[in-house]
């Protein structure tokens, strides 16, 4: 077991876990931050996406020992970010969510997309969001919400 100091949503956190423990387990089991979801556990679905050092990252495959001093932002903190706030509002206005299980990961990926490409095309959205699965099939509404957020941020 090792001790790790993490910065999550601007707050200092400390955990003592095995170095190989995925960040997702640290968030959900150690810190009880359950907004980030477990989907597949192999980075195939995107439900566990958080931002690490500003990069959308699959927390289910990231051992906590490799986080280093990079700041972490989760779905619980993304609303403090202007882009994150715009995406969340667009998600509501476009009524994106159905069952909702994948949506925290979808929002985190969408925020990363808009930070990299403020005016994404359909092709950009497809390429960037192509790793985030939604079994309810909300893809069309996700695309519209990303465009809505983009317009609000322009």
């Amino acid at each position, binding site marked *: 077991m090792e001790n790790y100091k993490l910065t999550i949503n601007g707050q200092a956190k400390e955990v003592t876990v095995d170095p190989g423990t995925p960040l997702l387990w640290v968030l959900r089991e150690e810190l009880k931050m359950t907004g980030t979801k477990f989907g597949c556990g192999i980075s195939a679905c995107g439900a566990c996406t958080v931002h690490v050092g500003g*990069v959308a990252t699959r927390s289910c495959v990231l*051992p906590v020992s490799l986080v280093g001093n990079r700041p972490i932002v989760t779905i619980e903190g993304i609303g403090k970010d202007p882009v994150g706030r715009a995406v969340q509002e667009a998600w509501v206005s476009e009524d994106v969510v159905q069952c909702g299980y994948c949506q925290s990961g979808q929002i985190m990926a969408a925020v990363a997309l808009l930070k990299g490409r403020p005016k994404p095309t359909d092709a950009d959205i497809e390429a*960037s969001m192509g790793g985030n699965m939604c079994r309810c099939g909300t893809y069309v509404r996700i695309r519209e919400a990303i465009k809505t957020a983009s317009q609000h941020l322009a």
Partner: protein
Amino acid sequence: MVRSESSGLRWLSGLLLLCTAAFTPSGAVGQVATSKTSRDTGLVAWQQVYSVLTYPRCINCHTATNYPQQGDDRHRHLFNVVRGPGGKGVPGLNCATCHQSENANSTGVPGGYNWHLAPLSMRWQDAKDNILSSAEICRSLTDRSKNGGMTGAAILRHHQQEPLVLWAFDPGQRRDGTLRSRPPLTHEQFVAATRTWVDAGMPCPTNP
């Protein structure tokens, strides 16, 4: 008949030119051999280098397509991963979305510093994922308009020091705990073969 001094010099110059031509690689870029390493020795060394370059740990990221490959069967990378404009994926789905600066053995995700695809100019496959021939890859690798302007010495350094090259020889373990397969040479053997090939003037096999 006594040969004059000037005609003797011309004869010697011609002989030197012939020797130089003999050591010039048959690829698009000709580099003159700077040592006594023969072209034949260089070609043997190149085939060793080629055996590593075309091994899945290396060639999976030297694709001609919009995606990287995975595994020893070189299947298309799962999860809809795409190349992106800089070979590092796209915002929201970068290589770094999963691949960190080192192998994550507890979760089975390989990693190395600055994980990315090789540029398309250094593709070692065709558009149908077929591996290019020894001669074709050799020509690409020695063409400074394609290889990032690398000289022979720079290629040798690249093989010695580039973190992603080093990763190929220490590729970590899969999710199930088994080790990923490694290239047919050790890193030391690979560097030695590269050095021999460079010393021979980087000869390339004749077509195809």
